[in-house]
């Protein structure tokens, strides 16, 4: 199985001339943003066509247009020579377009067969489930996929890789023409990946067109025949995988002219505020060592799943380290809970502000003071007047737009919500500020404001750690950049002097340390 998967020369497309699917000049606008600007993309039968681009480049929007979740403002979708317009995902599915997501939608306490035919169980007389046919049909599909488990197995007992196969098997019920894999290996171990590759080749042999979205160059070069690149919502070229190199693809991906505001970055650093020594959480990340000085912004760059957020959570006391040390202000500290972390002066602006950062049903003022109620109360009783003073201070300083402090936080825009989370933490007067994906899902204007705010905070003496998957963000704000791949720190770079290629290599596991690349770890 795995030998076939590692074969560098994928099977040639059955019919390499006529595309089974063409997206022509697709344009999609959201209020204030052009997410896709006249993007064209096609897939041939039996071909794996990789779609690449940075986060926010428009890959998922394009696929959502294809799957009928979004309706385009312009352009055509042509499937097998026929122009189509999908008003909803169901229509797209009926035409044979299937999306396989990272997150899975299986019913764990049901059998594999029931999951495959969920919503379309074969019935016999009297509206009873035809179990015989159900299992026969399921077994047939599983055999086509060369799956090793039975249709009667319980889904909850399967490994993540096998669950993903059930997900794929489900796609085959409707005889698909196009299957879109969106970061399919994100939750798979290296051991499980070859199985997925086999399935993809299998689908290819059956003449299915495959769209493969991934950040991982090695996978793309293993699997695909062609590679298309999107950048900032625009089509940026298609390459034949056989005739190109990883370097060329990387250049196409990031070749923008970055407007980096290096001048405004903080310059004066003090002592070490945070130092990690071989910090390890078994099975999550290993031997992570780096430091953040007072007044310095350190960027942590890596792909989703590289272990960045987990490192932050460990510093913040939400995970228990299984080895290594955390030093704050030069002293080894053991931080057992988020409460300890707050007392130690650590602030964490979490990745997912709606789920982890805010109480959406609470008003702006109450969210702002949540982490430091002690500062606005005496003898346990809240002093609402002082709370209002605190709220007004941060509301004005950060230009939070809301009609009143009474407004429920859930009604604010993403940028304003994020400012409230940041305000909440500033009010705890932290020594170390950790921001996890500080501008995810935030519009361009607020993004710039938040970047300026981060730099200003560092200049006023905060030690800042910014975790991000967006290269412009990391390059734009960081003095130093820590690159992570697969639970390890792969390299450390000077934020003003690093090349983008090196960064991309470092976070995709291709980086080999050479003398000119990384700066030595800064010491206190």
């Amino acid at each position, binding site marked *: 199985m795995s030998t076939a998967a590692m074969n560098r020369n994928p099977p040639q497309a059955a019919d390499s001339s006529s595309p089974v699917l063409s997206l022509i000049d697709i344009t999609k606008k959201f209020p204030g943003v052009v997410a896709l600007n006249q993007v064209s993309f096609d897939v041939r039968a039996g071909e794996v066509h990789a779609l690449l681009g940075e986060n926010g480049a428009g890959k998922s929007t394009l696929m959502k247009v294809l799957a009928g979740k979004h309706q385009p403002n312009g352009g055509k979708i042509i499937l097998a020579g026929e122009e189509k317009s999908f008003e909803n995902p169901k229509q797209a599915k009926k035409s044979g377009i299937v999306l396989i997501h990272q997150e899975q939608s299986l019913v764990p306490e049901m059998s594999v067969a029931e999951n495959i035919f969920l919503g379309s169980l074969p019935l016999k007389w009297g509206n009873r489930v035809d179990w015989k046919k159900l299992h026969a049909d399921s077994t047939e599909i599983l055999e086509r996929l060369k799956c090793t488990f039975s249709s009667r197995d319980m889904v909850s007992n399967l490994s993540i890789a096998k669950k993903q196969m059930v997900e794929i098997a489900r796609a085959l019920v409707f005889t698909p023409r196009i299957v879109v894999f969106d970061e399919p290996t994100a939750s798979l171990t290296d051991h499980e990946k070859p199985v997925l590759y086999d399935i993809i080749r299998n689908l290819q042999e059956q003449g299915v067109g495959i769209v493969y979205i991934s950040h991982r160059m090695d996978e793309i070069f293993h699997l695909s025949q062609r590679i298309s690149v999107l950048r900032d919502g625009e089509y940026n070229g298609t390459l034949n995988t056989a005739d190109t190199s990883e370097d060329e693809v990387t250049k196409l991906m990031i070749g923008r002219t970055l407007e980096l505001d290096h001048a405004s970055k903080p310059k004066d650093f003090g002592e070490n505020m945070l130092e990690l020594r071989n910090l390890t959480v078994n099975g999550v990340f290993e031997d992570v060592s780096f430091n953040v000085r007072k007044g310095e912004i350190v960027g942590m760059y890596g792909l989703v799943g590289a272990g960045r957020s987990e490192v932050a959570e460990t510093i*913040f006391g*939400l995970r228990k380290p299984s080895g290594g040390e955390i030093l704050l202000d030069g002293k080894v500290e053991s931080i057992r*809970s*988020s*409460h300890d*972390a*707050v*007392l130690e002066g650590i602030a*964490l602006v*979490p990745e997912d502000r709606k*789920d*982890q*950062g*805010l*109480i*959406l*049903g*609470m008003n702006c003022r*109450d969210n702002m003071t*949540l*982490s430091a*109620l*002690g500062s606005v*109360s005496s003898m*346990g*009783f*809240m002093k*609402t007047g002082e709370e209002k003073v605190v709220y007004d201070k941060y509301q004005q300083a950060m230009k939070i*737009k*809301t*009609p009143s402090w*009474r*407004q*429920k936080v859930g*009604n*604010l*825009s993403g940028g*304003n919500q994020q400012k409230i989370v940041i305000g*909440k933490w500033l009010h*705890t007067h932290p020594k170390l500020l950790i921001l996890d994906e500080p501008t995810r899902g935030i519009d361009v204007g607020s993004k710039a404001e938040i970047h300026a705010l981060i730099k200003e905070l560092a200049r006023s003496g905060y030690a800042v750690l910014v975790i991000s998957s967006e290269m412009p963000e990391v390059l734009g704000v960081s003095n130093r950049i820590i690159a992570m791949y697969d639970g390890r720190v792969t390299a450390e770079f000077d934020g003003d002097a690093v090349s983008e290629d090196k960064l991309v290599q470092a976070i995709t596991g291709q980086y080999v340390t050479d003398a000119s690349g990384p700066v030595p770890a800064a010491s206190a």
Partner: protein
Amino acid sequence: MINMKDFLKGSGVIQPIWVFVIVITVFFSFMSEYFLSIGNLSNILVQTSTIGLIALGMTYVMINGNIDLSVGAVLGLAASLSVGLQDYGITIAVIAALTSGLVLGAINGLIVWKTGVNAFIVTLGAMIGVRGLIFVYTEEQSFYATNFAFSDFGTSSIGPIPVLAIIFLICTLVMHLVLKKTGHGRNTFAVGGNPEAALDAGIRIGRHMMINFIIVGFFAALAGVLLATQMGAATPNLGRDYELWTITAVVLGGTKLTGGFGSITGTLGGVLAIGILRNGMNLMQVPAFYVLVILGVILISVLIIDQRLNVHASKGVSI
């Protein structure tokens, strides 16, 4: 300290339950001339004080995102202890009874906190187990108060207002202020609204949950003691179904089962609504079984109306 407008306003709108309370008050005052008399109104307050006291604590627990089904059993145990231990003196008996509530609440809270098992399951177990303890302790016997000071207390009044009603109203005021004005109150909302965000904000969510279970245990025990003084006795089956009436009152008052939202003023409205309906229909001589049917229908209707209003409100301003 509290003005009437703020009192009726939960979160910017007048709470629907208070509109309902006013409507049924007007309705019954036309149906029965006795309804609005001081005597009858105090009667309603005394009748609602038992469920009302428990509901105060239950409001905290439910805003916190939990539930306590063991309150009826805790009430029964406290009542039996407060009567059964009177040989050691009333003070000791009452202290023992109240302590039992605190301890059982603490145990519930500790289990929910440390094991992470759903509060519904933990307190369901406690409900069955504590009821068993009552039977072990009483050997299925009812206890009668031998000390008249005890049973006199339950029927005494200051001026025209019964002492039990006064206790209930004072507790309501205190609980309202604690919920609205203290850090604990604020954190109770935060933990119920989004436990993960509360944890990430450095709030010790386990402690707040436990404190709230202790509060509801205390109020259940207090309600048990006061009910025993009212009756001058305690029966082993005392408090059965009270958890359901309590939750009904709290939910009628606008507290969400999912946590993060609710108020003591709403709960007071919910408790009064049930009390007024029972009392008023009684005065109109509606047969008791129909009263239950009507109460069930009203509970569901009020919640449907509340849901519609909330859907409307959540479509508010978005910036």
